[in-house]
């Protein structure tokens, strides 16, 4: 196992020069030393939701004295991938075909890499040589300064001393680390350069997640608990607004929409908690907004599906989809403009500020709805049980002749159930609720795919008609779309065949028992059950 990079924070009372002299003296006693000036500037990149960092790694574009490259390192400083490049990639598919590109695509999918922080390091590097004049360990003393990538915030300069091991010469690295620890009276610091740089400009890594992190307690009054949850849901939604406007990647819109849908779902499914006036107005406002964002998301989905559409056709037919792609892209441009216009309206601005004012305001002492002062644990259990029973009942009525729209309704039931379980996850033991969510998710995947294939068949038919009406689409394109519709029907049938098995495992005695045990206990506290 290769030794890790060790970083020391140099004492502030010694100057750069004094530190350098001390290091040179210490190393000189250990062997032959060669020194050189060192300069390196790095910009760290990650996705908006910090996928690289969450995977225990950092990704940077580095310009040093010898090279310009993209470096993907583990938190230990081990280089997982590297590639010479004059610039950082924006998306995973900007990298050439190879293991770096594939690993990055697996991690960040369609998300864009955004610059998170810039770090400028200057100083001296010493190479400690053995009797063959071979470098066995490197030591760097640098003055490092972090700044935000828009240049508005600059951290204080920090002085660090790094011991960089050379593979296969671990003993030398350990000896030098010990030598410097004693000689410089310095303490090794934890974390990566990225952690320190973000701290220096007052930021935190992994600060955004689309997942709810609010912690509720079962005895909390429902209005208080739901307000806390709604504040977080609104934060998640608004955190994505800028990325939607700037069209950074398709996930911003998706997360923006999902947050909006969860807010509406929470307002409908947990009724009688807030006064009717702001709640209904906000719900209606979000529904109005979804009329603009929905078409844009649909077009994103078809554009994302396009590669898989293409590969499902014979190679000679694939080009026939080019006019379809152009059609989608033009439509998307228009849809994006409509979304931005909607976000620029005073209606949207007022919608958000009114809701924010309500969430930040005082709660009425006596509660404002029927359920306002009831403990949230009770309401959660009641709503989840009800939604679960409904879904099971609808599922049981499905047979071979059931039309697609019933599957769609069941899909919605399950989605609502899923939202409820995620809203209230913090009220239950992780090991009890997570398996239920996983099981539900498996079932939802089946229903979701069934519905996607249904919707896509209709949409492709509609697109084909519109393309043909608007500009007389090439026959080849229309035929290719016809082929795709056939394939989608086949895939849909496959999902329908799987339904029985998935539903059986979702609705079997064991699973029903788990729901009843976990969510029934909470309702014993009295109160109304509707």
């Amino acid at each position, binding site marked *: 196992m290769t030794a890790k990079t060790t970083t020391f924070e140099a004492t502030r009372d010694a100057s750069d020069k004094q530190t350098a002299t001390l290091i040179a003296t210490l190393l000189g006693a250990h062997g032959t030393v060669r020194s050189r000036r060192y300069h390196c500037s790095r910009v760290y990149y990650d996705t908006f939701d910090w996928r690289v960092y969450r995977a225990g790694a950092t990704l940077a574009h580095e310009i040093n004295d010898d090279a310009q*490259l993209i470096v993907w390192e583990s938190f230990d400083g081990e280089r997982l991938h*590297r*590639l*010479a490049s004059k610039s950082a990639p924006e998306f995973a598919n900007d990298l050439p075909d190879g293991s770096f590109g594939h690993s990055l695509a697996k991690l960040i999918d369609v998300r864009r890499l955004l610059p998170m922080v810039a770090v400028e390091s200057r100083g001296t590097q010493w*190479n400690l040589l053995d009797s*063959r*004049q*071979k470098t066995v360990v490197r030591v760097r003393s640098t003055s490092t300064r972090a700044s935000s990538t828009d240049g508005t915030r600059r951290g204080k300069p920090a002085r660090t001393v790094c011991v960089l091991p050379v*593979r*296969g010469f671990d003993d030398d690295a350990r000896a030098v680390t010990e030598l410097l620890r004693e000689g410089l009276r310095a303490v090794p610091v934890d974390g990566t350069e990225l952690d320190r740089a973000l701290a220096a400009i007052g930021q935190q890594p992994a600060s955004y997640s689309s997942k709810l992190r609010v912690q509720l307690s079962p005895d909390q009054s429902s209005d208080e608990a739901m307000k806390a949850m709604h504040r977080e849901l609104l934060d998640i939604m608004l955190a994505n607004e800028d990325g939607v406007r700037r069209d950074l990647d398709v996930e911003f819109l998706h997360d923006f929409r999902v947050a909006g849908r969860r807010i509406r779902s929470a307002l409908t499914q947990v009724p009688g908690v807030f006064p009717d006036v702001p709640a209904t107005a906000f719900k209606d406002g979000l529904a109005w907004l979804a009329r603009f964002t929905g078409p844009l998301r649909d077009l994103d989905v078809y554009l994302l599906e396009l590669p898989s559409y293409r590969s499902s056709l014979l190679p000679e037919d694939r080009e026939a989809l080019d006019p379809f792609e152009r059609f989608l892209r033009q439509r998307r441009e228009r849809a994006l403009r409509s979304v931005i216009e909607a976000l620029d309206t005073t209606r949207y601005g007022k919608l958000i500020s009114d809701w924010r004012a309500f969430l930040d305001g005082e709660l009425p002492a006596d509660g404002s709805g029927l359920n306002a002062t009831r403990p949230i644990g009770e309401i959660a259990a009641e709503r989840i049980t009800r939604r679960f029973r409904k879904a099971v009942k609808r599922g049981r009525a499905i047979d071979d002749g059931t039309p697609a729209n019933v599957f769609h309704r069941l899909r919605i039931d399950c989605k609502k159930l899923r939202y409820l379980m995620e809203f209230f996850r913090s009220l239950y033991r992780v090991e009890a609720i997570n398996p239920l969510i996983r099981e539900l998710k498996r079932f939802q995947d089946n229903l979701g795919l069934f519905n996607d294939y249904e919707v896509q068949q209709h949409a492709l038919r509609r697109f084909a008609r519109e393309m043909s009406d608007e500009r007389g689409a090439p026959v080849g394109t229309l035929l290719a779309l016809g082929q795709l519709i056939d394939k989608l029907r086949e895939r849909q049938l496959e999902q329908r065949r799987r339904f029985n098995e998935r539903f059986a495992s979702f609705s079997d005695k064991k699973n029903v028992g788990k729901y009843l045990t976990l969510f029934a206990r909470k309702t014993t506290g009295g109160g109304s059950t509707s």
Partner: protein
Amino acid sequence: MTIFALYNLKGGVGKTAAAVALAYLSARDGARTLIWDLDPQGAATYCFRVRADIEGGAKRLMAKRRRLRGVIRGTDIDGLDLVPADFSLRRLDIVLDARKRPRRRVTRMLELLEPDYDNVFLDCPPSMSLASEAVFAAADVLLVPTMPTPLSQRTLEQLAGFLERKGPQGLEVLPFYSMVDRRKALHRQTCESPDGLAYRPLSVRIPYASAVEQTVTYRSLAPLFGRDGEAGRAFRALWEEVKQRLADRPA
């Protein structure tokens, strides 16, 4: 991971210099690169100033696949690591012969390094033996430095004959002219008329240059790449051509 083997049945053709230069250029591209010195003479190991010594020798190294990782040494070049040579590699044939499936041994050992490296360069001893067969089986690309003389061309034909009979499927064989001395009429003539060869040689020719010798002598890549000399330029062009040939290969 792409495995390049630098190989020629004939010695003294500039094989080690090419292995060292191409591995260096690969690392400069940013690829995580490993050079495995399989030649008991240990010239590549010497170039990187590493001790040509593996604990327990070739026998111990080849006995357990995971031991390969333990003997890797970082070179002074960023992104380039080395498996040093050992004098016991002269008996590599015997070591391999004592094992089951000896021809698959090098392949199986390198499989474990798949997540760590993008490019691997094998610097092979000049011989035609069980060890060479194990290298042919592991390699994706066989780079054959060839001097532009009739004798060298004959060894290339011998190699082609062997690979046709017993070589692995899908091995890309790329000969290139090495140690080309344009003052010699024979060299010029041979380079100009590569017809009738079993493989089309790469178009880039590596000149006979003192910079190549100095790189090995002074154990530094500076004479080759430090200033923009003819030999350094030739190696750069050669590496680009090799990459291009691989990119053009049908999937």
